[in-house]
Structures are given as structure tokens and as C-alpha cells.
């Protein structure tokens, strides 16, 4: 399906009596919310973490899947949120909400600055520039070890993770609170992503992905639109990082390493490039693939690699991308 077909399908869906796409996404979110009442304890704990990481993947997909910009340095945005929140809470005595905002703001500022520089390049050069910036950020987390404790990292302990919201106390060490905050974050980001990709701006993003020169010739300011996409993507990734720090009480340099720039790429590739729910599906599947495979072999990453190879060969658009191509044409 071409981008034009996809856009037409989106438009047709929205003109109907029921907004099928919106209903589908709300239904998926409702299932994720309801799962906490029926799944086992381990799945409950795992799903909270998966939802935070899926938020990261949703953010990554806005840049990669919809705008066509392959970043190999998104870990710097995740880490900006992680450290912004973690250091804010542990060393500046900020509350949970303030720390979260500090993390998100860190990502916003970093993605704006990086965007202004990196978007002067395209294609392979963009990949390399983002990777190099991410490596610089990773080294900064080690260089400022006095504040970050470098590779060892920081544990958020004590009352740091208690908060009062809407007059009610919340304890982030509670699995129930953690699950629902992770769910809330994912739900907000999925709905933002859905709204964005179906908006005129979202269509410009797709137009840039399909043919940037043509989009420019049509009068769109492609640089500004790409910067917007990168900032939204980076800020969303930072929100996931900030949530990870506060929910799981650990901030460490490994989250700024190249591995965490590659992971969202794999999650998006697995779930479906350029689909709103694909990153969620991909993150979930990858988690369980690793979890189950590791019970049988220490070569579980080989299993993951083979699975990805199969996917790339037979389902190059990922699971939901293939589904959209063959069955559900209106899937955004």
C-alpha cells in the first residue's frame, strides 16, 4: 500500500459512523488496563516494565516509522529522561512529579538541540551523527561519575518515590500504582501518536518519509516538520526514561549505551514500522521471546536474531505492518 492509499484509508475510516481506528486503539488500551486483574503476579510486574519500554518504542516510531529518519542514538533521549528524573529526585530533592517533569524537559531540550544539528544531515549520515551524539552522552554519564555514579548507577530509595496527586497519596513501590502509571503513560503516548499521525502534520511526516524533495516542492517546511517529529519522539522517549527511573528506582549508564538505541529499532521492526500499535506489540513479543528462550538456552539472543531474520525476510513490514498490508488497510 502506498502512503497515499494509507492516507485515503485513514480519511475514509474517520468519515464513517464509527471511528474504527480510534475504537481499536481504545479497545487495546482497555485490554491492557484490564489485564492487571487477570494475569499472574510475574506477568503483572513484567507488563508494567514492558509498557514503559513500549512508550519508548512508540516515541521512536514517530521519527523512524512515520518520518523515515532512522536514529541510532535514541538512547540519549531515554537517558536524558532517566537522569533528569533520577538526579532531580536523588540530588535536588525534587518530588516525583517535579522529577518526572525535569526528565521530560531534559529530553525536550536535548532533542531540540540535537535536532537542530543532526537534521542538517540525511540518510546514513543522520544515523551516524545520532549514534555519535548518543555515544558522547553515554560517555558524559561516565565522565560526571561524581553525580551519576557512572556505570554503577544510582538507586532511588527511601521516600523519594512517594507522592500526593489529586489529594491522594501514591507509593511507587506498590505494584498496582506502578502498573497503572505505566499504563497511563503508554495510553497517553499512544493516543498522542494516533492523533498526530492522523492530523495534517502527520500526513506531512509521511509525505517526507515517502519523498522529502516532493514534500518540499509542495511548499512544506520539511526541516521544521522533521525537527518537530524529532522533538516529539525524543521527548516521548525521555518521558519513558523518566518513568523508568521513578518506577523501577534505578538510573544507570547502561541505559545510555548503544544497546538501548538498537532495542527500540528492533521492537518497532518486529511490531510494525509506521503503525501506532506496532511498537507495543513488538516490545511485548521481544520481552517474552527473550524471557522464554532464556529458560532453555543461554544463546537466547541467537533465538532473537533468528526470529528477526525470519521477520525481515518474510514480514519486512513487521507484524502489524503486514497485517495492514493484507487484512486491515485502515490501520493507522
Amino acid at each position, binding site marked *: 500500500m502506498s502512503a497515499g492509499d494509507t492516507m485515503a484509508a485513514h480519511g475514509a475510516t474517520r468519515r464513517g459512523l464509527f471511528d474504527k481506528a480510534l475504537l481499536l486503539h481504545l479497545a487495546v488500551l482497555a485490554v491492557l488496563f484490564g489485564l*492487571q*486483574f*487477570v*494475569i*499472574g*503476579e*510475574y506477568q*503483572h*510486574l*513484567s507488563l508494567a*516494565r514492558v509498557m514503559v519500554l513500549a512508550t519508548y518504542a512508540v516515541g521512536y516510531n514517530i521519527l523512524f516509522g512515520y518520518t523515515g529518519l532512522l536514529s541510532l542514538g535514541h538512547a540519549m533521549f531515554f537517558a536524558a529522561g532517566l537522569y533528569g528524573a533520577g538526579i532531580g529526585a536523588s540530588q535536588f530533592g525534587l518530588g516525583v512529579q517535579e522529577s518526572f517533569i525535569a526528565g521530560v524537559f531534559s529530553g525536550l531540550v536535548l532533542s531540540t538541540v540535537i535536532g537542530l544539528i543532526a537534521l542538517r544531515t540525511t540518510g546514513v549520515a543522520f544515523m551516524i551523527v545520532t549514534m555519535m551524539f548518543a555515544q558522547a552522552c553515554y*560517555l558524559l554519564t*561516565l*565522565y560526571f*561519575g561524581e553525580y551519576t*555514579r*557512572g*556505570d*554503577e*548507577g*544510582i*538507586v*532511588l*530509595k527511601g521516600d523519594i518515590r512517594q507522592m500526593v496527586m489529586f489529594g*491522594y*497519596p*501514591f*507509593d511507587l*513501590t*506498590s*505494584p*498496582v*500504582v506502578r502498573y*497503572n502509571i505505566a499504563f497511563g503513560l503508554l495510553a497517553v503516548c499512544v493516543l498522542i501518536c494516533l492523533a498526530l499521525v492522523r492530523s495534517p502534520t502527520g500526513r506531512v511526516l509521511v509525505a517526507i518519509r515517502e519523498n522529502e524533495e516532493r514534500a518540499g516542492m509542495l511548499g512544506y517546511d520539511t526541516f521544521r516538520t522533521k525537527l518537530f517529529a524529532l522533538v516529539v519522539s525524543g521527548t516521548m522517549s525521555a518521558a519513558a526514561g523518566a518513568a523508568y527511573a521513578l518506577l*523501577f*528506582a*534505578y538510573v*544507570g*549508564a*547502561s*541505559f545510555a549505551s548503544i*544497546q538501548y538505541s538498537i532495542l527500540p529499532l528492533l521492537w518497532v521492526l518486529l511490531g510494525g514500522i509506521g503503525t501506532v500499535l506496532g511498537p507495543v506489540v513488538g516490545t511485548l513479543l521481544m520481552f517474552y521471546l*527473550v*524471557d522464554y528462550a*532464556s*529458560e532453555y538456552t*543461554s544463546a*537466547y*539472543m541467537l533465538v532473537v536474531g533468528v526470529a528477526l531474520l525470519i521477520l525481515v525476510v518474510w514480514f519486512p513490514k513487521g507484524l502489524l505492518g503486514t497485517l495492514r498490508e493484507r487484512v486491515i488497510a485502515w490501520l493507522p
Partner: protein
Amino acid sequence: MAKSKKTLITPKRDLITRRSALKGIAAAGAAAAASTTAPGFVRYVQAQTSEPLKLGFQVHKTGIGAAYGRWYERVVNACVGEINANGGIAGRQVEIVSEDDGTDPKRGAEMIEKFATQHGVDIAFGTLFSHVVMGSAPRAGELKLPYYVVSEGYHVSSGALNRYTFQPGITDVRSQVSSMAPWVADKLGKKVTMIYPDYAFGHDHRDYFSEAMKKQGGEIVELIPIPPTETSYTKYFPKIPSSTEVLYHVMVGPGVLTFVKELGEHYGSNRPEIFGFIDSLEAVPIDSPGLEFLEGTYFWEGYPRYAQPDQTPYDKHYREVVGVNDEGASVNDPKDISTYSHMFGCWETLYIIKQAIEASGYKGPKDKAALIEATEAITDIPWDNQHPQGDKVFNGKMHQVFGHQNISQVANSKLDVVHRTSIEDGMYENDTDYSKMPL
């Protein structure tokens, strides 16, 4: 793997609990269905006295810690084999549930959750790399899973972790480093240049060795941090002042062979005294090509790799059971060098776990508090088959053990112990008191 009987234990009262969330659903008319299907939080598996004691072994099978993890696993299997052959722990056989954490803190945290809620282990243990401990310990604390690490990091006694995390089988880096200073200052020289990796592990060396040397009237004449991505070290060596009497190095990772080779090329035969940490050369043969320059230099060893002339029967026993020869290599493959200075920590930790379980009368997860308190109550640890590295003192407030350290000299491509520190040499005070934290 045996299925254990499941018992619901009342969870700690959360500010917003699963139950209160369910009540909210009930108001909407769905509570009945939801409550019957709810899994119940903090649902622990109640082990019975006749059933095996399950220990979750968090092992670095892959990732940067794999060389250590492989040997940690061998020691654990050997030790558990011995414990089970001698009647188990409190009459119960021990079952090891091992999971690979990939030497990754995120995966480590997931492992702790899996141990506590899926495998239903009684205790988790065995983690080595500091960042994995730091990522995992908060989850162990929140899930109230007793967690015995074998990491040598200062993170436990620094007070950064929680009441459920202990390090009873291996000394920490602050203690190790501090205890080296008196001998280095007395025998090698007082003007020291330090070369260390520029991350937390190296910073601990920098901070605590500098502090200890100053107490001995010594002086750190230059600090040379090496970025972790560095692959060649030649450019750093001119920074070493000519007044240096002792070059202190601690390099970890695959770059160590290059480091030593280039250091040799820099100095030739006219070198200062050189003192290093064996962490650089764990699992590496001392007679590897390129390491000739180390002849005559000194190393810290947690536990001497080479059997010494005054070898104790405890060390002999330990080597036999684990399958390590007198050169510190596998008896099945003399080229397979062990991580001898660290892996004994798993052996000694398992026997501390045995001691604490038997002292507390631990029967199942409901006795976790008693198990924690029994571990905290341990003080003097004798030198015997269960603790072959040496006698030790456990500090129940810091959750950290203190013990002897060894200084060895490379002679004929082997390591000969030239000094063994006292326990007091490595002791320090701080404000950490985990025992005041609620259980």
C-alpha cells in the same frame, strides 16, 4: 522442577492496593468477577519442610561478566552438591534455579521479579557486577526477597541499598583497597601514580586508596583515569611523573593485555615498583604472551590463585570439590583459568545462607524476617572448609563482611603470596545501619 504448595500471605498495606482497585471495579458492578480471578499480590510460594529449598542464582552467563559467571556457576554447583550430600540445609535439599541476567541491570531486575513471583525461590544470590546489583536490589527490597550478592562493590555497605540485600561472602572494594595501603607505603614507596578506569569501579579505587595512602604518610603524585572506550594506552604513560615510586593499576576488560604490553614498551627494564589488582587478570593465564613485563610486580589477590607452600586443608578441600588444580585452572583443562580471587565468594555465601537458615528456623517465606535478622546477627566467621579463604567478621549493620587480603608477587609467571593483611587493616566505619529499616 517441583511445584510447591501455594499460600496467600497478607501483603504489606499499600497506599493504593490491588484490593482497593478491585473495590473500585466492584462499584461498577464488576468486582465479583474480578476478585475471583485476581492473582493476589505478594503471593508467595510456601515451601514445606520436606520440599527442596529453592535458591535463585542470578548468573552472568552472557555479557561482559560471562568469564566470571561461568566459574561462579561451577562453584555454586560444587558447593550445592556438597551441601546436599551432607544432608542439605536444615534437612532440606537445595535446588538451584539459575537464570542468565546477561550482565544487564534491566534484565537483572526482571530476574529478581521472576525468582520471587514465578519460580517462588526462598532466596536470590550470586550477582557479581555492581551495576546489575544496583539495578536488581531495589526490586529485591520491594518484593522482600532476601538477596545475597557476591559483588565486592561498596554499594552494600555504603547504605545505598536495602535491608534485604547482603554481601556476606566477599569483602568490598573499599576494604580491599584500604588494606593494601600500609604494605604498599612500607615496602614499595610512598609516591604513587594511579592508573584506573574512568568509571565507578575505578573511582572507588581512586578515592579509597588515595585516602588510605595519605593516612600512611604517602602521596598520590598523579591520577590517570582511562576512558572505558580506550584501546591504546601509550599516550597516557608520559603523564606518569618521574618521581613515581609505585605505579598502581587496575584495568579490567580485554584491553589489559594491550595495557601491560604497552607499559612494558614504555619502561623497558627501568621501571618503578608496580602494584595492580588481579581483577585485571582473572581468568587470564599469567604466562600469556605480552605479560612478561609483569614479572616481579605485585598484585592484590582476594584468594591466592596458586596453591601456596603453607596451603591449608580448607583450600585443598575447596580446590578438590570445585575441580581446580594447584595453578588455579580447571583440572579438566589447564588452560581454563579460574576467577579464583572472586568465585570463593559464592561458596562462602552459600554456607552463610545455610548458617542463617538453620539459625533462624526458616521454614518458608513467612520466616523471611527471622532469616534477615539471623543473617544480621552473624559476627565471627571461622576459617574452615565452609570458609576456605579465611576467617572473617560480618557487620550486621552494614550487611558487609570483612576479611583478610593477600599481596602476591609474580615470580616465574606464577603468583607467590608475600603478605596477608589482617582483618583490621580493611575495616572502616560509616553511618550505615540497615537493621533500623523496617522488614
